[in-house]
């Protein structure tokens, strides 16, 4: 059974049940009351006539019956023979079994063609005859009849209305759900551009549609990134693998053991650099998964940049640049992952040396602004044009102009992932000339920080700009 039919039937059933309950209650209450009144009237009347019969016999009874008829137009009286046939009084026929007491029965009056319902009381007289007194159209009885009629009409109406309501609700829900289902179906078959229509009604269905669309946008971004990543991965891994293969080929036919050893050492070196690329990719994924947060601890970022400056000073020197440390005075303590921040900074420093050493000066700095800490690496090289900066952050996307240089271009992407892990950002700016890469993080990250997924739309927006 389709859901919409089920919803319609359920709504109809609920409407019916509530109406039956209300009408039934009213009916039970009023019916009971009116019947009690009727019963008392008929019983009293019969007792009165029976008393007269007891005292004065049939003649007295007959005159009393006439009096009663004259007093109350709805009161009917009569005598039935021992087999229930009318012998005297207002009745042409009475359909009832013959026994002492009160009941309701169908009666036909003299001069009338159709039977009508009446409340009757039968009393057995001496000689086997029956005294019958009845109320044909008492207020209670009439009310009861009307009530019964309204009850049936009401029930029929409520059934119809319920069904109509059910159908409307089912169609409304069904349409909204079908829209979602249709989109889900199309997406399932591979068309990821589909979106659920948002009607702007601000109801839960609209909210659902919006949420689903946001989710789809996020999935799309991830898929785009993934496909860029796989393309770039294939591209960037091809050349080292190719070189390894060529070296292995050459080693097989090397003329001297020395030459072979040299080629094999080259192969090991290439394999190591491949491993490094793969490790960094894993590292990025892990940083984004927030699993490293349990290794956060307080440490002095000033000391960290000093150590890194000391570590990279000779490397910068050999590349023809001077590494200048600009460490702010005061408290530079931060709660974070020392190893990962060191790795992020070393990536930025290596990038600066690789691409910006020609400018002569590489700056490394740590500054505290309020409750945020900025770790900055600057160079005086060609920099990155503003339009390409988001691109530069993406995994593996080395800018085309730098394609010729060594390095997998993962450095900025990892630095950004690590900044995010700390609840901060990687900012790329102009250093006129040159690049200013800053990891800006809160000194104390929010313990219940936003999840990687919740943060994603903001990132997507920045990237879309």
């Amino acid at each position, binding site marked *: 059974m389709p859901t919409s039919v089920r919803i319609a039937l359920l709504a109809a059933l609920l409407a019916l049940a509530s109406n039956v309950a209300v009408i039934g209650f009213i009916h039970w209450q009023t019916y009971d009351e009116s019947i009690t009144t009727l019963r008392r009237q008929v019983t009293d009347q019969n007792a009165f006539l029976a008393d007269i019969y007891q005292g004065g016999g049939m003649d007295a009874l007959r005159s009393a019956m006439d009096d009663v008829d004259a007093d109350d137009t709805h009161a009917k009286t009569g005598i039935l023979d021992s087999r229930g046939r009318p012998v005297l009084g207002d009745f042409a026929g009475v359909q009832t079994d013959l026994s002492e007491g009160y009941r309701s029965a169908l009666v036909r009056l003299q001069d009338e063609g159709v039977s009508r319902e009446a409340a009757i009381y039968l009393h057995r007289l001496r000689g086997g005859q029956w005294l019958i007194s009845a109320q044909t159209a008492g207020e209670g009885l009439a009310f009861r009849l009307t009530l019964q009629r309204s009850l049936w009409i009401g029930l029929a109406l409520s059934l119809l209305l319920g069904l109509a309501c059910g159908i409307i609700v089912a169609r409304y829900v069904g349409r909204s759900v079908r829209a979602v289902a249709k989109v889900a179906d199309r997406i399932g078959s591979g068309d990821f551009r589909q979106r659920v229509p948002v009607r702007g009604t601000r109801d839960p269905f609209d909210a659902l549609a919006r949420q689903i669309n946001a989710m789809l946008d996020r999935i799309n971004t991830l898929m785009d990134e993934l496909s860029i990543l796989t393309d770039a991965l294939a591209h960037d891994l091809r050349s080292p693998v190719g070189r390894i293969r060529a070296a292995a080929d050459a080693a097989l036919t090397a003329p001297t053991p020395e030459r072979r*050893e040299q080629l*094999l*050492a080259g192969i*090991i*070196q290439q394999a190591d*650099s491949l*491993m*490094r690329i*793969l*490790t960094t990719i*894993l*590292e990025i994924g*892990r940083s984004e998964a927030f*699993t*490293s947060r349990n*290794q956060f601890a307080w440490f002095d970022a000033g000391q960290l940049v000093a*150590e890194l400056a*000391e*570590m*990279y000073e*000779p*490397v910068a020197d*050999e590349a023809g640049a001077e590494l200048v440390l600009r460490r702010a005075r005061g408290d530079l303590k931060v709660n974070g*992952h020392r*190893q*990962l921040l*060191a*790795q992020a900074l*070393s990536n930025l420093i*290596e990038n600066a*040396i*690789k691409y910006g050493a020609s400018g002569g000066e590489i700056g490394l700095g740590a500054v505290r602004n309020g409750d945020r800490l900025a770790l900055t690496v600057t160079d005086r090289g060609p920099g990155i044009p503003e339009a390409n900066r988001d691109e530069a952050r993406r995994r593996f996307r080395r800018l085309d102009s730098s394609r010729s240089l060594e*390095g997998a271009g993962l450095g900025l992407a990892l630095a950004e992932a690590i900044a995010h892990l700390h609840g901060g950002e990687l900012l790329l700016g102009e250093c006129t000339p040159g690049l200013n890469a800053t990891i800006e993080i809160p000194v104390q990250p929010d313990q219940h920080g936003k999840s990687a997924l919740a943060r994603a739309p903001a990132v997507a927006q920045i990237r879309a700009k």
Partner: protein
Amino acid sequence: MGRKILLVEDDRETAAYLMRGLGEEGHSVEHVIDGREGLFRASDGSYDLIILDRMLPLLDGLAVLRALRAAEIATPVLILSALASVGDRIEGLECGSDDYLVKPFSFAELTARANALFRRNESRPTADPRITVADLEIDPLSRTVRRSGKKIDLKPREYLLLEYFARNEGKIVTRTMLLEKVWDYHFDPGTNVIDVHVSRLRRKLEEGFDRPLLHTVRGAGYRLEG
């Protein structure tokens, strides 16, 4: 000198490769393939080194390590793992391992690290803390270095680098070992940063002397030897 090594590794190919290599170095290697058996064998404390895979059947490597350390068995443990991230390495070290090596690794890297662990566990003569390598004399107390009696001025990091080399005299020391032990960084910087520091140290040590001390071992690392 041959050592007694327990290898806990479920991958038979890696295990066979390691057993052959370590056997050729003169060590005796016992191999078990699951964590429970590994813990059982290791608990008598009779090994010189335990090489422990991180992902093992029945009981994983870190659990074995924690159990050993809880039982106060101080046998050096070298963890092998395919989990390469900085976080994983630090987790391994914090569990009480003495070293951590990421798969795939070169055999040279493994033996270099194993030798460093053997050496560390040996009792050193305490009377004279000075270390001598050929005509090189290092005084860890005053942090001074002399070669043939002539004082050599080193920067603090260069001194630490040299002391680490000297404590592993004659053994291969890899670039990653230096990065981890001298700088305490557990990531791979990917450039020649270590080479630059080593070549500066070498220049200071060998300038004006005929005999080289700090040798480059191709495809593996460096060795300090007279």
